Structure formats: structure tokens, C-alpha cells
């Protein structure tokens, strides 16, 4: 019912606007077209400067309302993310000044140079000096931004630090699977044709000794505060993307082509709850690449812990191999607390990760 009402009102408004517009056209003819045209020109000229003022007020008001809801109010949650933020502020300063200056000039000129019988147009087809200035100045500003950007880019995409821990992240429709390399610090081999949703979601090759201590889990990934982590990212089906807004990081998960990112978590989840004042705060992994109808629900969680909490957490976990074949578990007789994630160099891990 309300729908019909809305439609009826909309149609009515249309008819009214249309009739008024039409009628004023006839009035214009009666009043003298030239006079009406000049009047309208003045109104639109005035609107130009009004729009400028209201627009700038709107920009300010929008910032008042929504700035506090962005991630910028708090520190980035990773050491590298802080560099993203500072780069963001520099870029905002440069583009912000240009934005305000050019919009003011544009609308102000439109207002100031609106048609007037008194004005004589200035024939000004070109001026080499001016054109050189506004070619060179932007070029210099952009060079500065490129230099800052590329320094960060090479840091982010460069090798992870020696002491980084490795976690493998695998996307699937619609969730994430994590794998820790276990005490040998090496991710064992896998092959996608071994995948079995119930027993072997990653297609691990059980015969590989490196596989046998790998720990596989879903839902929540555990990281250590202050310890760099290198994520080795892959996908089981379509392209996904590991989006980590709080850490300012993101990387696609592409089937058949492993990718990596690394970063250093700066605050534990508990600390972030205090920093943000949100008791429900979670580090969420959002899938940022369209992956099907469940794309919007493909959520993972990262729990950043202290080293002790992390060690305790890991000690309680069995490797995928040991869970599946309890009779072959070499650790079965031993106390579980020896299963620690070693802080060893891990370059080898990425190499063996994807395929046989």
C-alpha cells in the first residue's frame, strides 16, 4: 500500500515540476526571452557560489560524522601499517590542498565571470609559462609521492624478517583454513587431488615427513604480538583475498599460484579492545575478492596473543596427521608441551608449499 502511495506521490511531484517548468517557459516568452535568460543566468551564477560554500561545509560535516568510524582514529595494528598510515596522511595533505584550491577557483570563476554586458572577454588562447608551471609542479609533487610509496612497497613486498613465523592461509568457498608448520618450521607438501573435505581439506601428502607435524585449523588464526608473521596464501577453488584492514595488509588467494605477505602485529586482541573501546573487537579477515554468492560471509578471525599465551594455545593442539592417524602419532606418549612453533629461518617453507 505504502508503495502505491509513494509511486502516486512521485508521479504527482513529477507532473507538478514538469508543468511549472513548462509554464515558466511560456512566461519567459511573454516577459521577453532575453530578460528571463539574464535572470536565470544570475540565479545559476549565485547557485555556483552557494554550491561551493555548502559543498565545503558538507565536506567538513561528513568528516565530523564519519572520521571517527574509520580505522584512522587508532594506530594501525601492525608495525608496517603505521607506514601506510603516515603515507596516507601525506597523500591526503597534498591532494586535499589541491582539491580545495581547485574547487574554490572553479566555482568562484564561474560565479565571478558570469555573463555581464559590461565585461569584455579576454582573448587568451595560450601562455607557455603558465602551462610549464602546471606541468612541472604536479610532476614534482608526484615524484615525492612515488618515492615514498615505492620505498614502502619494496619493504612490504620484500623478504620477511629472519625470525618471522609462517602460517599458511587457504581460501575456499566460503571460509579460511590455516596451517602451522609445526616444530620442524616447514610446511609439508600437498597436492590438490588429495583433498577430501572430511579428512584432508588441504590435500596434504601424509607420507611427507614435513607434513606430519603440521597443524591445521579453521575459524581462528593465532598470531604473536611483536613477532613478524609471513602468510603463505593460496586458494582451493576460485580467487579469494586475505583482507586485513587493521594491519593495513591485503593479498589475493589464487588457485595454483601461492602468494605471500608479511607484517608484525603490534597489539594483542585484548589490547585492541581497550584501544578501540569496543569489547567485541576482533581482528577480522574479510574476503576482498568476489568469490561467489557467499562472498559477504567469508570471515576469518585473527587472535593476537602474547608469546606465553600463544605457546600454551599451541601446546594443546595436535597435528592433522596425529588427529587422523592417532595410532601413528609419534608424540602420543610424550607430554604435549614440547610442540612449539620454532622461530627458525623459514625460507624453505614457501618453496615447497604448493605443489609436488
Amino acid at each position, binding site marked *: 500500500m505504502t508503495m502505491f502511495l509513494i509511486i502516486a506521490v512521485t508521479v504527482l511531484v513529477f507532473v507538478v515540476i514538469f508543468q511549472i517548468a513548462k509554464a515558466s517557459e511560456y512566461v519567459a*516568452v511573454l516577459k521577453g526571452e532575453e530578460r528571463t535568460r539574464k535572470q536565470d543566468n544570475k540565479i545559476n551564477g549565485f547557485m555556483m557560489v552557494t554550491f561551493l560554500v555548502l559543498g565545503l561545509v558538507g565536506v567538513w560535516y561528513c568528516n565530523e560524522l564519519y572520521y571517527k568510524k574509520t580505522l584512522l582514529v587508532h594506530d594501525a595494528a601492525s608495525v608496517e601499517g603505521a607506514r601506510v598510515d603516515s603515507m596516507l596522511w601525506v*597523500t591526503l595533505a597534498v591532494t586535499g590542498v589541491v582539491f580545495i584550491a581547485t574547487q574554490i577557483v572553479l566555482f568562484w570563476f564561474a560565479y565571478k*565571470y*558570469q555573463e555581464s554586458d559590461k565585461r569584455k572577454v579576454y582573448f587568451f588562447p595560450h*601562455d607557455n609559462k603558465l602551462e610549464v608551471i602546471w606541468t612541472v609542479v604536479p610532476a614534482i609533487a608526484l615524484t615525492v609521492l612515488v618515492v615514498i610509496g615505492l620505498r614502502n612497497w619494496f619493504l612490504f613486498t620484500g623478504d620477511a624478517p629472519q625470525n618471522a613465523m609462517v602460517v599458511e592461509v587457504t581460501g575456499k568457498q566460503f571460509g579460511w583454513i590455516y596451517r602451522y608448520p609445526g616444530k620442524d618450521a616447514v610446511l609439508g607438501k600437498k597436492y590438490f587431488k588429495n583433498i577430501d573435505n572430511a579428512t584432508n581439506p588441504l590435500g596434504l601428502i601424509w607420507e611427507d615427513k614435513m607434513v606430519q607435524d603440521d597443524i591445521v585449523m579453521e575459524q581462528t588464526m593465532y598470531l604473536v604480538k611483536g613477532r613478524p608473521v609471513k602468510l603463505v596464501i593460496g586458494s582451493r577453488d576460485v580467487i579469494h583475498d586475505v583482507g586485513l584492514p587493521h594491519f593495513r595488509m591485503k593479498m589475493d588467494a589464487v588457485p595454483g599460484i601461492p602468494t605471500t605477505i608479511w607484517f608484525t602485529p603490534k597489539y594483542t586482541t585484548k589490547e585492541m579492545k581497550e584501544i578501540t573501546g569496543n569489547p567485541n573487537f576482533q581482528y577480522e579477515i574479510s574476503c576482498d575478492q568476489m568469490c561467489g554468492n557467499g562472498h559477504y560471509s567469508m570471515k576469518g578471525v585473527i587472535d593476537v596473543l602474547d608469546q606465553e599465551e600463544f605457546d600454551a594455545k599451541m601446546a594443546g593442539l595436535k597435528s592433522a596427521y596425529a588427529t587422523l592417524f592417532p595410532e601413528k602419532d609419534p608424540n602420543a606418549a610424550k607430554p604435549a608441551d614440547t610442540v612449539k612453533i620454532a622461530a627458525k629461518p623459514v625460507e624453505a617453507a614457501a618453496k615447497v608449499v604448493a605443489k609436488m
Partner: protein
Amino acid sequence: MSNEAVFQAPAAAGTHHDVHGDHHGEHHHHETFITKYVFSQDHKMIAKQFLITGMVWAVLGGLMSVLFRLQLGYPDASFPWLQDLLGKWWADGGKITPQAYYALVTTHGTVLVFFVLTAGLSGTFANFLIPLQVGARDMASPFMNMLSYWFFFAASVIMLSSIFVENGPFSGGWTAYPPLSALGDASPGSKTGMDLWLVSMALFVVSSLLGGLNYIATVLNMRTKGMSMTRLPLTIWALFFTAVLGVLSFPVLFSGFILLIFDRNFGTSFYLSDIFVNGVGALPNEGGSAILYQHLFWFLGHPEVYIILLPAMGMVSEILSVNSRKPIFGYMAMIGSLFAIAILAFLVWAHHMFVTGLNPFLGSIFVLLTLLIAVPSAIKVFNWITTLWRGNIRFTPGMLFAIGFVSLFISGGLTGIWLGNSALDIHLHDTYFVIAHFHIVMGVASMFGMFAGIYHWFPKMYGRYLNNNLGYIHFWITIAGAYMIFWPMHYEGLAGMPRRYYDYSVWESFKQFAELNRFISTVAMIVFAVQILFLINFFYSIFKGRKVTTQNPWGANTLEWTTPIRPGHGNWVGEIPEVYRWAYDYGKDGKEFIPQTKPIGDDESHH
């Protein structure tokens, strides 16, 4: 009010070289309804066909955005009438289903980018303006030109039909990345809907190529006597570069689609490797690269945004100059920057792929080249602003939209500097920041260029005027609305909010924007309604608008205004006029304007 009055103002300085009134009569060859309105080979009629088909798609595409904005703005509400209207598949219980949501998002993107802003914008104005402004009776090949429209029409029909198939239209995003787009088992939208999508797009590529080759041939070979390349209006330069971009890049997209068709139907593995699909098991494909498709796609995809933007830039340059009564500032710099943009357009595609894991060194080259584009863009903006400076500005609706274009191009262009810088892009990639960026700079700005062109050249198209008051309402609500819709989206992006989500309410990090999403959806509906008002104005004015009674209502210099008020097929009665000067002698030596057809006087100053 009146545009006629514009012309009544201080008389034209020049006498036209070849002024013919309507009474001379036009070409008398036999034309039936079919040859005149349907299978027409007249570039002006083909332009109108492109325009009106584009408008139909703009309404459909806009309506789709209203529907998915309904879901985003009111994720908890249900609208039972939606199910009555659209059926259960689309709106189960009055709530847009996820499958329908993704189908809407995908079709909205495809349709707006290709059918509205490529065919509707550059198809319309390249067809309409190139022969009229270079001084030709028609395109180099009118028949090919007709085919170009009918291939587009066929593409349209097939795309439309995909909305009605069992599993719905394609729903994997307008970029159609495989493996999602290759595997019907991974997404129901990738079944029949995707086949139709691919066929439709392939036909569209054919249409673009037929059109583009024609535009290039016409500009290069069919200019009238005296019309050297450096006397061409900037519209023609822009449309020329647009056509070159299309001809060089659409075939690459086509090849990408062919490989995709092979992967989908013939068991090849160009894009597929290491895939296990739930419910199906491991696929046999090994050795393909999903990233290869992205390279092929974006090799067109990036030039495509300039294919959309350049015609708008060209028309805006022309309209700003005419209505400031002042020459465009830096004509040669404008051509140079168009040229630079056209070259760079081919060298920046991988900036869409910074987070695919591409080689960091390669990425750094693309950062450099991407940010380089800001230089010619800055030149254009400063030149447009300087064109206004010390002019004598008439705010016709066309002029308003041209000024609006410059404002939007600045706003959206500046955020390109954020996204083109890879280290920052890592954070902002695929968030609402990107949506805000490309909608403002490419979507809305180009739409504004298109509106400017329609208001400005409507008198030439139909011999009547659009209602100006409706034009003013249309402009002011649309520009205010466009900013209200897209400006706050930057903030959502700065919160990391991802694109293409059906519902944000389960996300601790993104659910704080529920109220803002509702606001955006409401404004989007109002702005959509105002576009309908424009369409009413458009179709009403075709038949009932005020008649144009003078040949050159805007007092413009270019050749189209030397034709009869309602030109027939062939454009000029008698000889095609000769050209003696560039198109921008406004306000020179105290004369208000000097048409291109007026010979240079002995006492004229040099510039």
C-alpha cells in the same frame, strides 16, 4: 526561458560561407520508414539510435543499482511487493536474494560501463559529431556504421535475455575473473548466464571495432577543405583518440574471452589450475594461470576508462569554450595531454592487480606510469579553469554539466593518486574507497559529459530545445546527490569496508555504517528519480519542445551550426563549406565569435 535569446545577442561577426535555409529543400532520395528510422545509414540517425538504446540501458542499469542499494540500505527490511514484481528468484519474501544481489551488481557494472558509457556516450557523439564537425556528408562507410549499431543491438538483446534464464544472469562481477566465471559449479550465475554474457560481450566488441575503424577513417580522410588536423575542434580529437584506444585494446579483451570460452566449454586449462570445487571434487585442470585473464582483461579494462572519459573531456572542452565566449585555453596542450593520456592508458593496466602477487619490480613500474597520468590530467583541469577566467559565462544546462564535469573530475581524479600508489593501494584495494573513486571520476563525470553533450547538441539533433528549467533542476539535484552518494563512501573505504558485500551486519569492523548506507540508498533513489525527469524532458521535447528558429543558437564556431536547422542525409545543401581557421576564435579583436568558415581578414591579429 530561451536559448534563442543567446543568439539574438550581439550579432555574429561573420557571414556564413554557405548559408542555406530549410526552404532550399534537402536531398530527395526515396526513404521508407525502414531505411530512415530502422536500418538507417545516416550517421545522425545512427547516433540517435545509440543514444536512445543507451538511455534504455541507463534506466535498467540505474534501476538495478536502486534495487541493490535497497538491500544495502535496508538489509533487515523486506518489501513483499518486490516479490510480486520480480518473482521469488530475485526477491524471496520481498528480500533481494544474495544470488540476485550479485547478479544485479554484475549486470549494473557491465551495462553501465559498456552499453551506456561506451556505446551510449562515445557511440552517440562520435557518430553525430564527427561528420558534422569535420565537414563530411557521412561516415567513411555508412553501411559498416549501421552494422556497428545493429551488432550493439544484438549484444543488448542477448544481455537482456540473460536476465530471464534459469540460473539468472552472470553474477561474478563485471570483470568476470576466472575461475569463478569459468566454473558453473562454483557459482550458479556462471552457468547459462555467463555463456550469454560472453556472447553478448563478443558482439559488443565487434560493434566497437566496426564503429571505431569508421571514426578513425572519417577523421583522417574526410575532413573538408581547409580543415587541417590542428583546426579540428577538441571534441573530434578526443573522439579520435577514443577510437584508436578501442581499436587497439578491444581485440585483446576478445582474445581473453575466447580463452575463457575454451576453458568453460572445451576442457582447456588456460586459466585453471589446482582447483577443488565443493560437491564436485578436484578438477583435472593443471598448469593454467588465473592471473593471465586479469592481464588480458585489464589491457582493455584500463584503456576502457579513457574510452569512456575522453569523449566527455572533448565535449566539455568545446562547451566550456562556447559558453565562456572565450577560446579554450592551451589548445595544443589539450591535444598533447589527450595524446599523453592515450599512450599512458596502455601502460598502466597492472595497477588493478597490485594485490594479485605480481612481481614487485613490475608493480613499481606501474606505479610510476600510473601517477604519470596525473600530469596530463592536471594540465587539462588547469586549462579548463583558465578557460573560464575572464570569460563571459552563460549558464546553459550544457554549460552547467560541463562545469560539474570538471568538479567531479578533480574530486575523483585526486583519489586516483591514492590508489595508484601501490603501497597505499594494498590497504584501499577493493574497498568502498575504490567505488567512490571510479564512480566519481569515470561514472558520474562521464555521465555529466554525456548530459552536457545532450543539452548542447539537442537543438542540432531534433531542431528543438530541451526545457531549460527542468535542465537546471536536473543539474543541481544530480551534482549535489552524486556528491552525497559517493563522498561518504571514502570514509567507508578508510574503514576497510570491502566492495560487493550483500550484508555487513555480521562484521564487527564494518557494521557501524548501517545508518550511512541507508542515507546513501535514499539519495540514490532521489537522484534516479531526477534522471527519469530528464528522460521525460528529453522525449517530450523531441515532439513538443520549443522550435529552434536560428541556424546557430549558441553562437558557436564549429561546422555543425552551418547546416540547416534540421539537416537531411548529407548534412549540407550544396557545397560543403570550406574552413579557414581553428574552432575557437571567440572574443577575438572585439568580435563575439568568428565561425571556422570565415576567411582570415587582412586586419586580423595573430595569436
